């Protein structure tokens, strides 16, 4: 187990190195420069030259990369060109919001997706099955920004139940020691604020969770259908186990193995920041931050942000692999 974890962590080094080169070259291959993006119509060739010179962007790309590598290895991710705040500080402000949104979206998709897939399989080829398949097809195929606009129109503009933007109402003031707003509200003992934060989470979580929900439902359904026909299930039933026990201990537990892979991958993706959802809901997470950085050609933020996101995805995948061993003892990590 330990060997497995260490090996996976060592693998992180070449992955991140390769990724950093890719990102570094890619953003510099985009036409234009931060200077152009910063000043727009007001940029002149002189000012562009001046900014490029100050940011060292007129040096050869390998010189720039070497300097970037040296800085990054000391955990210096640089300073945002637009806000002039350290990139690491901004990650600290933005990432908790993305984590909260990811957890909410994951809860939404898992708590609804697994039961939906399970019952669809149990009622194979019934109306319930068809409806759940229909829902999952809808979830996969509808563009998130469109779903978000519709959800906001119905539940906020028409019904007035939920807010449309942000993480918390502007008129509520609580201290933010952790930047996890739910935690901050609890620490402040302010239940009104807590409920407000939860309300702000609902629509973005539903919009963001729609694709994972669809994927999880389909995988669960397929896995349960597979497992149901296994010999050991028949044996369990034959020896007279209550149907509920068979379903829970044998069918569901074995079916959850492929599902946990998918959940892990999906959560990894969620944590990398939902660019569309966060932008449409003006949600101050990693996704909306990166989107703005790309349109501003904010090199330090793009480089630092993507590197950070990559580390998160790799770690979540590692956790998923470790969780295999817990769900299914037959899998031995790092075994021969």
């Amino acid at each position, binding site marked *: 187990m330990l060997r497995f974890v260490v090996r996976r962590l060592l693998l992180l080094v070449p992955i991140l190195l390769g990724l950093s080169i890719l990102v570094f070259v890619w953003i510099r291959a985009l*036409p*234009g*420069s931060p*200077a*152009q993006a910063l*000043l*727009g*119509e*007001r*940029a*002149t*060739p002189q*000012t*562009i030259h*001046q*900014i490029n*010179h*100050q*940011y*060292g962007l007129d040096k050869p790309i390998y010189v720039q990369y070497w300097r970037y590598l040296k*800085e990054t290895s000391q955990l210096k991710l*640089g*300073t945002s060109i637009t*806000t*002039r*705040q*350290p990139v690491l500080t*901004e990650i600290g*402000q933005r990432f908790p*919001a993305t984590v909260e949104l990811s957890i909410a979206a994951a809860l939404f998709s898992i708590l*609804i997706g697994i039961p*939906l897939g399970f*019952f669809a399989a149990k*009622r194979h080829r019934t109306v319930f099955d068809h409806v759940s398949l229909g829902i999952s097809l809808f979830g996969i195929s509808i563009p998130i920004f469109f779903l978000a*606009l519709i959800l*906001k129109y119905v539940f*906020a*503009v028409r*019904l*007035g*139940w*939920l*807010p*449309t*933007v*942000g*993480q918390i*109402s*502007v008129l509520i*003031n609580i201290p*933010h020691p952790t930047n996890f707003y739910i935690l901050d509200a609890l620490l402040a003992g302010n239940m009104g604020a807590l*409920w407000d934060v939860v*309300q702000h989470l609902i629509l973005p979580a539903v919009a963001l969770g729609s694709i994972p929900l669809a994927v999880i439902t389909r995988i669960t359904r397929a896995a349960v259908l597979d497992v149901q026909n296994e010999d050991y299930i028949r044996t369990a039933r034959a020896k007279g186990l209550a149907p509920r026990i068979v379903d829970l201990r044998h069918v569901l537990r074995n079916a959850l193995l492929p599902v946990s892979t998918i959940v892990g991958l999906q959560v990894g993706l969620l944590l990398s920041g939902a660019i569309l959802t966060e*932008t*449409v809901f*003006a949600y*101050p997470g990693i996704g*909306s931050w990166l*989107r703005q950085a790309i349109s501003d050609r904010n090199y*330090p933020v793009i480089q630092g942000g993507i590197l950070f996101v990559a580390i998160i995805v790799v770690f979540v995948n590692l956790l998923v692999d470790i969780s295999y061993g817990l769900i299914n003892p037959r899998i031995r990590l790092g075994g021969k």
Partner: protein
Amino acid sequence: MRKLSRASIVLGLLALVVVAVAYGARSHKSASDTLVFGSSADPVALDGALISDGESGRVIIQIYEGLVALKPGTTNVVPSLATSWKASAGGKSWTFSLRKGVKFSDGTPFNASAVCANFNRWYNFTGSFQNPSATYYWQTVFGGFKTYDPKSGAPKGSLFKSCKVVNASTATINLTSASASFLGALSLPSFFMESPTAMAKYGANQGSVDADGVFHPTGTYATAHPTGTGPFMLQSWTRGDKLVLVRNPNYWGKPAHLSTLIFRPIADNAARLQALQNGEIQGYDLVEPQDISTIKSDGNLKLLSRPPFNVGIVGMNQSIAPMNNLKVRQAVAYGLDRQSVVNAFYGGRGVVAKEFQPPSLFGYAKNVKTYAYNPAKSRALLKAAGLKLPVKISFWYPTSVSRPYMPDPTKNFQAFSASLTKAGFKVVPHAAPWNPDYLGGVQDGKAQVYLYGWTGDFGDPDDFDGVFFRTPQNQWGFHNKAIFSILTKARDEPTLSKRIALYQQANRMLMDFLPGVPYVHTSPALAFTKNVTGYVPSPVDIQLFSSVSVG
């Protein structure tokens, strides 16, 4: 039966969530003396000297004031912290009489020493403060700094020479050459007066430059302690979430109606509109043309218009033949069906432009040469230029952008392309994303014919004609000494009546020389909820909220 009930438990739980949410159905109505405004982004910093973006300016103008201001709803320069001013030495020396009894929000007095402390601070900037992304407006208006740093690339030499304290309520600004446009420029947020005491206390000039060369302020002045004389003061700022201003109880003028003014950053246009409809914000700027009918038909919302202070242009680069031929440029002008484009794509919010500056600004000339759509005349001009029809031109237009002067550039291009084809041209389209690809190509002088435009910063024709044509620029590709010199003379002339005459003459010359074809001035729109009153839209993008109240 039992299994079925389990399925219904899931559905039941879902229903419960919906009911719970509905039970908590919210009232978004804020207190009657609080207004939440949807901005498009966070400010960069709350120190006017270091910003050039509109969202920073929008907040800064509530906190700070300049020596002069713009009369609400116009670009006319009026007294603010200075009650009067006088030019002498042929426009090289400007003496300002200052308002007495004014205090910064930290309690320190505003006086002539404070004025000179501010000017000297700007003039003495070194290192990365000389970066145009930090001090764009200083460099535009005043040029260089006290210490010339050849590495920074900032211009050598400055319009600013010195600031002299005559007495506590009189300060004199000495310039190295005569200039009149600098007075209007003092209404820009970049030249607002900041408390010297607070700047020193909270490290306004402290910062380090990291390996990327980005200036990184280490002081907290520009983020937590901006200190001015304006009607509002900063209470708190959480990036990405909200920026809260409160009324300045010691404001020297009429106190603000609102006790709290909150700016909430919402980058997405559709999201801003939905937030307004849902009552989470009470107003927002930069309304998209396609949203105007929605807002007009909503009984709870209203639309306000800014006076036109922009210009849309079809630019022509004379370094790419045959644009160096005046007859060809005239043929382009006669070949653009500007009236149809303005009628079709501006939702009744545009007028056809006849000059490069908006009509509300002084210096606008009545009798310039005009170019009404006339394709036959275009073809005749092309033949007279000795060219074979159709004449091939490369026409650049930007994608993924909406500017006040061109809400939908692609449609503008398509209509212009069709009318130019009738006028004897063969149009080769060249599309690129606006920023930075398109702007970069145009400004580098790669585009032959292109869509372009400008929104004014302050009430001076130099901010239109001067920006484009006072100096040689790659994007226009011409060297016309007569035009360069009259625009320089007009900028520097201290007497207003003489300036007006010079700009009128310059505008006539420009429309004869035809470096481009101005085609539209538009009125950008803002949206508010019906109960918001007292907001006077300014032609420039920013204005005070002190007269605003929520009914």
